[in-house]
């Protein structure tokens, strides 16, 4: 009988282990770092800062640095006709949106890299289909060079590439920006576990 017990236990453990993803999250309690290159001037450290920008959102309103004054925000880059990673990233952005829905310190900012085709009307339709509003989540378009320049500043790869599906190549990274325009955390927007950890980073930043 004992052998049977062990076999049963072994089977149960095996079944659990076989399908476990094996990635546990750790919260080391340390403050979030400030990411990016830093300069030293007169003995003081200058951190990488998000530069001035100005775009138009799904409701035709201007979105700029002032929009996020004293707030923290999560950034990504996408385009509405993207056949590859975008819907997955948007699914994860939605998780962030839902989790911080009632926290008025947290905003989301999605940039279209297909500035020619993604008109304000298209962005509006896209945002409505996700059932989100611009008082929380901005979908912006604007000057193409400025959008790509901002991608560089957020350390997100984005480029036009005729060889890539629908003509654009970009990464699905999410970036967390603090109220001083510093970049404090990032994650892979296609990977739910990476986003789990990212949301803990947002909690941490909110507690600073």
């Amino acid at each position: 009988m004992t052998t049977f017990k062990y076999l049963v236990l072994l089977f149960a453990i095996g079944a659990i282990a076989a399908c476990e993803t094996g990635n546990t999250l750790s919260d080391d309690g340390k403050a979030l770092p400030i990411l990016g290159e830093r300069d030293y001037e007169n003995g003081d450290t200058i951190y990488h800062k998000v530069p001035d920008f100005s775009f138009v959102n799904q409701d035709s309103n201007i979105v700029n640095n002032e929009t996020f004054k004293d707030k923290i925000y999560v950034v990504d880059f996408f385009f509405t006709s993207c056949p590859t990673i975008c819907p997955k990233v948007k699914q994860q952005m939605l998780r962030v949106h839902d989790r911080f829905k009632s926290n008025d310190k947290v905003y989301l900012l999605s940039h279209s890299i297909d500035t020619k085709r993604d008109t304000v009307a298209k962005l509006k339709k896209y945002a409505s289909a996700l059932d989100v509003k611009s008082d929380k989540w901005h979908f912006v378009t604007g000057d193409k060079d400025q959008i790509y320049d901002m991608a560089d500043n957020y350390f997100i790869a984005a480029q036009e590439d005729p060889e890539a599906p629908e003509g654009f190549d970009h990464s699905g990274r999410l970036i967390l920006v603090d109220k001083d325009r510093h970049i404090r955390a990032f994650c892979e927007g296609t990977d739910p576990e990476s986003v789990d950890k990212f949301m803990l980073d947002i909690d941490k930043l909110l507690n600073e």
Partner: protein
Amino acid sequence: MNKYYIFFALGVIMYISSCQTTRFPQGEAAYLAYCASCHMEDGKGLKTLIPPLAQADYLQKNSEDLACIIRNGLRAPIVVNGQAYDQPMAGIPNLSDVDINNILNYIKNAWGNDYGTIKLSEVQAQLEGCK
């Protein structure tokens, strides 16, 4: 003794639910490669941006059009399970007739769907007639 049976039952349930194998492994692989980025692994789509394939009445009601949708896409307002959708889906022209056949059999039977199977000859007849 009783609690070991519970462990056993738990093991069986976890084994079945998380490691379920499909009758259509080729179709599943192609689905994951070409469709899951939008329709998601669980076939549930995304809000009203991407319609579901899981438990979708559309699959049953429009079974004659499915091969052409995969090859040429779909750019018209549609209704799936009573919900309106209107974002374009681009076609995926580099999938062969056989790939499309595999994918169709997978989505017709995945996620609790029970919409039968389709033969290659039927898929090819549909593809001949695409508008």
